[in-house]
Structures are given as structure tokens and as C-alpha cells.
């Protein structure tokens, strides 16, 4: 960044007190680094890589988020091992569906935003505030979304004040809505939501929530070509994260694999049509 004073001290924007938001700071100090800064595109982009289905399921004491591993580019599979569910901070996680490049950048900015606030203020944002910050970032991407680079996040976390797992979803215009039970986004979300609707129980355990999340992804992959099913040959399983009072934890492949195998074994008995 150029130094306007020209005498080798930090530019004034760094030393100005006020904001604890990294996104707000960047918008002044280096606006070109923000996810929306792609300029005006000559024509809508239609061939960028896309990420697909994400599900989130609450259970008493926390929330599970899971995502498939496929990225598509038109009719082609662009990548088999994409990670679309990420750590947001100690008590929350975030996933995305839509343009992969924009989604990954949005999540990176969101992660820094939460950590930045925490370091400057010495305390963490409330879960609602985190959800609102994410809405603000989705809003910033609206011009890009209109040109074909749409991305939608799904946010879930453990509310340390109420002791509950909570889910927030967004639309392209950044309208935020809270889901009490489960939610799914992406091209396979219609099928995933149908699957969850039949299997969700309000008093189920974390293990049940993991299982029905993976079942929902399986159902999405079954009917949506852009969602990838579990790849047993390459040992690529869905990414599954849990957030509870103990914080964020990504389940290891060794934990996910038995659940996937058991679902496949059950489906071999009863394919559901």
C-alpha cells in the first residue's frame, strides 16, 4: 500500500481509531482486495466452476454441517475433492454453494473478519452479529451475482448465550433467515431438504444428525448431477463439521467413512426406487 505521507510511517488509515471490522477497513485501505472488486464484466460469466449441495442440521446442544465434494463447470466435473464447509471461528462454521472462486474468497474474508474483531476488541461477536456480517458480505457481491457469479453461504454455529445450535441461510440479495431445524442450499438442496424432512427428529443425537446429513447429501447426489456422491474408490467422503459447546470440530475421514459405508449398505437393501 502506498504511503501518502512519503516519510516511511504507516498510512493514516492504519492509525485511525474506530472500526473493528476488517471488511470495512479493507474498503478504505485496499478496496481492490474485496471479493466484489472484479470491475464490470463485458458479458455474464457462465463457465466458472460451481459448488453444489450443503446441508446443516441442528440437534439438542449443537449443529452439524456437511457438504459434498464436487465442483462442476457446465456439464464437466471440475474438481472431485472441493471443500465447501469451513471453520468460521471457534463456535461457528460456514459453507457455500455457487461460483467456487467467489465463494472461497467470501469465506476467507469472513474468517478474517471474525478473527480481526476478536483480536481488536478482545471479545467475540454474538452469533447474530456474525450472521449479520455475513449478510453484509453477500450484499457486496450482488453486482457480481447479477453477472452470473452468484454465491450463497450457509452459516451455522453454537450460540454460547442460549446453548443452542442455530442455522442462518441467505438469498442472493442477502436476506437472512434463521432455520430452527435444518437447511440446505445449492443445486441439490431440493432433494436434500426432502430427505431431511422425513428423517429429522427434534430430539435426535449428534450421531443421528451426522447420519441424516450424509443421507441427505446421498439423496441430493442421487437426483442432481452437479452434486457428488461419496467416492469410495478415491476415499473422498463428504466434509462434515460439528459445532457444540466444545467448539468447532471437523470430523475425520475415519469417523465419516463408517457412516457412509453403513448408508450404502442400507441402500443396497432398499434403494428407495
Amino acid at each position, binding site marked *: *500500500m502506498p504511503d501518502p*505521507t512519503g516519510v516511511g*510511517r504507516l498510512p493514516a488509515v492504519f492509525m485511525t481509531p474506530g472500526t473493528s471490522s476488517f471488511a470495512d477497513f479493507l474498503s478504505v485501505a485496499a478496496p481492490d482486495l474485496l471479493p466484489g472488486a472484479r470491475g464490470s464484466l463485458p458479458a455474464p460469466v457462465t463457465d466458472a466452476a460451481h459448488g453444489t449441495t450443503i446441508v446443516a442440521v441442528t440437534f439438542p446442544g449443537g449443529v452439524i454441517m456437511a457438504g459434498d465434494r464436487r465442483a462442476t463447470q457446465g456439464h464437466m466435473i471440475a474438481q472431485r475433492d472441493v471443500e465447501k464447509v469451513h471453520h468460521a471461528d471457534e463456535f461457528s462454521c460456514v459453507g457455500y454453494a455457487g461460483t467456487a472462486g467467489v465463494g472461497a474468497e467470501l469465506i476467507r474474508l469472513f474468517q*478474517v473478519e471474525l478473527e*480481526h474483531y476478536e483480536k*481488536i476488541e*478482545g471479545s467475540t461477536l454474538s452469533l447474530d452479529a456474525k450472521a449479520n456480517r455475513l449478510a453484509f458480505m453477500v450484499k457486496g457481491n450482488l453486482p457480481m451475482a447479477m453477472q452470473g457469479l452468484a454465491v450463497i453461504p450457509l452459516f451455522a454455529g453454537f450460540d454460547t448465550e442460549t446453548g443452542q445450535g442455530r442455522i442462518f441461510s441467505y438469498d442472493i440479495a442477502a436476506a437472512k433467515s434463521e432455520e430452527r431445524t435444518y437447511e440446505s442450499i445449492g443445486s441439490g438442496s431440493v432433494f436434500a431438504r426432502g430427505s431431511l424432512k422425513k428423517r429429522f427428529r427434534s430430539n435426535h443425537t449428534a450421531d443421528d444428525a451426522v447420519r441424516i446429513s450424509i443421507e441427505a447429501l446421498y439423496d441430493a447426489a442421487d437426483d442432481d448431477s452437479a452434486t457428488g456422491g461419496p467416492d469410495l474408490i478415491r476415499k473422498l467422503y463428504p466434509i462434515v463439521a460439528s459445532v457444540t459447546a466444545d467448539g468447532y470440530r471437523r470430523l475425520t475421514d475415519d469417523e465419516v467413512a463408517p457412516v457412509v459405508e453403513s448408508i450404502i449398505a442400507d441402500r443396497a437393501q432398499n434403494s428407495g426406487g
Partner: protein
Amino acid sequence: MTMPFGYASPEQQVRDKSEYARKGIARGRSVVVLTYVDGILFVAENPSTTLHKISEMYDRVGFAAVGKYNEFENLRTAGIRIMDTRGYMYDRRDVTSRALANAYAQTLGAIFTESIKPYEVEIVVAEVGHSATEDQIYRLTYDGSIADERGFIAIGGQSEQVMTSLREHHVEGQPLSAALRVAVDALTAGAPPGSPPNGERTLTAANLEVAMLDRTRTRRMFKRIVGSQLDGLLTETAPAAS
């Protein structure tokens, strides 16, 4: 050559500013930064639990300061902004304490020469390495001077007495509880003028701010030591009552 009215030579100006800054810093309590077996320990004498003198900067980097609160808080915020911006532009691994120390040195240097009033602060920027030999500790003073320290450093009011004690008792590769005891004893030795004579002034968990950069942690290595953990570490090495 006739001197304009109110002229002061550059030497005189620098001397005056230095004296002013030193006086301001000497009024405050000291902060100790020292290595232990798994990383770097920060210990400050600070009765406030909310107005911090020690802070997390980035995954491996911590910050400690003494002097005027609004001035070092300004630098601390600027430092977090620099580091988060660099980590976002490049990669988390490319964020180094050296870059931060350089930015502070240049900023403090510029403020010292250009402003009528220099910043009355002293700062330590420390980075925990993958092994003890890669640990880095930088000390920055009010005029932008920078020094690369090995093992331990004290800043603030009575830093000379504190340093004497540290030189005597600091051991490379000491466990966490031993390092904390060395730091607390050193801070006790640096009694501010007007406080009860040595031996009668005891530092307890209530007036200590303690944090560590622990290389055994994953990603964010900065952690505050508070509550029962701090009490436990302090009693573990408490000198036997005589």
C-alpha cells in the same frame, strides 16, 4: 549567522524529546517477555482485566507494551490491521513479526522526528518459532530504535532492576511454571518508587496479566493464562513461607 528566535538545535530537540518520552514510560509498571520450553511467555503487572498490555497479533505473533495507553493501543490496532491484511493478501505463513517490527520502527521513528510530542511507549513484538532457536523477540523504543533480543526482555518503568533479576535467573528451556516464577520475581524486584520495600510487595493473579505463545497449539498459538490455570502455576512455584 543569526539564530531565529526560539531556535533549538536538533541535538537539543532530540534530547528534550527523549527525556520527555523516558519520563512518561518510567511512570508505568514493567512488562516481561521471556522464552520457556514450548514458546514465549508475556507477563505484565496490570491490575486491570480489560485494559490489556498484552495482545494477540497473528497466529505466531504477540505484542506487549508499556507507556501511554491510547498511544500503544493505536499501534496495536494498526499492527493487527497490517498483519490481517498481509495474511489475506498473501498467506497466513507469510505473516512475520519482522515485518511488523519494521513497520513499528519506521512509524515510531517518523513520529519522534516530526511531532512535537513523541509517543511515550515501549513495545515488544515476539514470534514463536517451530523450535526454540527460531523464536524471535524484538524490542522497540519511543524513537523507533529496534533491537533483536535473545531469551528475555523487560520494558517499562523499572526495566533495569527487572533485567538484572532476569539475567540472573532466566534459564533456556525452562518449563512454563519456572518461567512464570522468574518473571514474577523479576517484576517484584522492580518495585516502583513509593511502593513498600522489597519482600513486602507481592504480585498475585489479581494484578498480573499473563499470556503465552505456545508452539504446541495449532494455528492460533496465543493464549491468555487466567483463572485457575494462573493460580495453579503460581502456587506450584510459590516460595515456601518462612
